[in-house]
């Protein structure tokens, strides 16, 4: 019985650790139908920062969302260590979960509307959707690097 309880608690702990919201180094999977490693890394790689103040990091992310070229990203929801951001453009939408901790910030795919629904989603990284998805995210990543670099 004791062993069983120990096993149960270890399993619960491992599960909660793996499913928690925190930036994790992106590892590219070479999938037959997926886009190139370069495109994937340009969105999902960790963006490191040097601030130990999470409020500063949160502010920098919110600023970056508003300062993208063209249509801004808007807040959908917030939670512990993440910001859910949505970008609407010409009848389609991308929803990203921007996760942050005391070392880095990372974009993860949370959902899409119409053209930007993911056809191949692995570990919250979208390997296949409309080609413009990979183009339109460049501005967000650029602004994140800029605002996080200035704190």
């Amino acid at each position, binding site marked *: 019985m004791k062993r069983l309880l120990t096993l149960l608690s270890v399993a619960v702990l491992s599960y909660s650790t793996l499913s928690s919201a925190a930036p994790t180094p992106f590892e590219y999977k070479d999938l037959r139908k997926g886009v190139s490693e370069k495109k994937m890394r340009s969105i999902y790689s960790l963006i490191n920062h040097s601030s130990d103040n999470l409020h500063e990091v949160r502010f920098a992310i919110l600023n970056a969302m508003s300062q993208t070229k063209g249509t801004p990203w808007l807040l959908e929801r917030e939670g512990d260590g993440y910001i859910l951001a949505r970008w609407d453009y010409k009848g389609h939408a991308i929803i990203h979960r921007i996760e942050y901790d005391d070392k880095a910030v990372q974009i993860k795919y949370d959902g899409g509307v*119409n053209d930007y629904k993911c056809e191949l989603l692995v570990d*919250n990284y979208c390997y296949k959707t409309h080609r413009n998805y990979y183009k339109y995210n460049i501005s967000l990543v650029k602004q994140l690097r800029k605002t996080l670099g200035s704190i």
Partner: protein
Amino acid sequence: MLKRLIVISSLLAVSTFADANNDLNLRSVNANSYSFYSDPFKLADYVKEPQKVIEKAITNAGWRVKEKGEGLIKAELDHKGYLLNSTIYFDNKEISFEHVSAQRNDCSGSRCKVKQRHVDRWRLNLRRHVATQLTKLAKKDAVASIN
């Protein structure tokens, strides 16, 4: 009891190892499902006055407040020959939308067909203005938290 514990443990253990293994054959994560303009907003603690947020959004989006009630605001858009009605519900935890009607008010006969793409755009615009207000509040809260 013992049986149940065994089943739960094994399920969790399998799921854990499937995650840890990162083997693509084991699992692909499904994304969350979002709609074009009807998803509710879950509010954070710093949104103290959701009614003000909604009223500001309605005005900025070019809509007008038609009626106010306990926990709801009825909004109307009279624009380019279209008349749209939506009800926005709110409390301290959530803002949600009910798009009541969309009709043409400047025509007769076969020309009265409502073009859904226009309606979609104007409803989305209203929702985006609510999101803009929430983004502003989040920024204010972030600044206050830093200081």
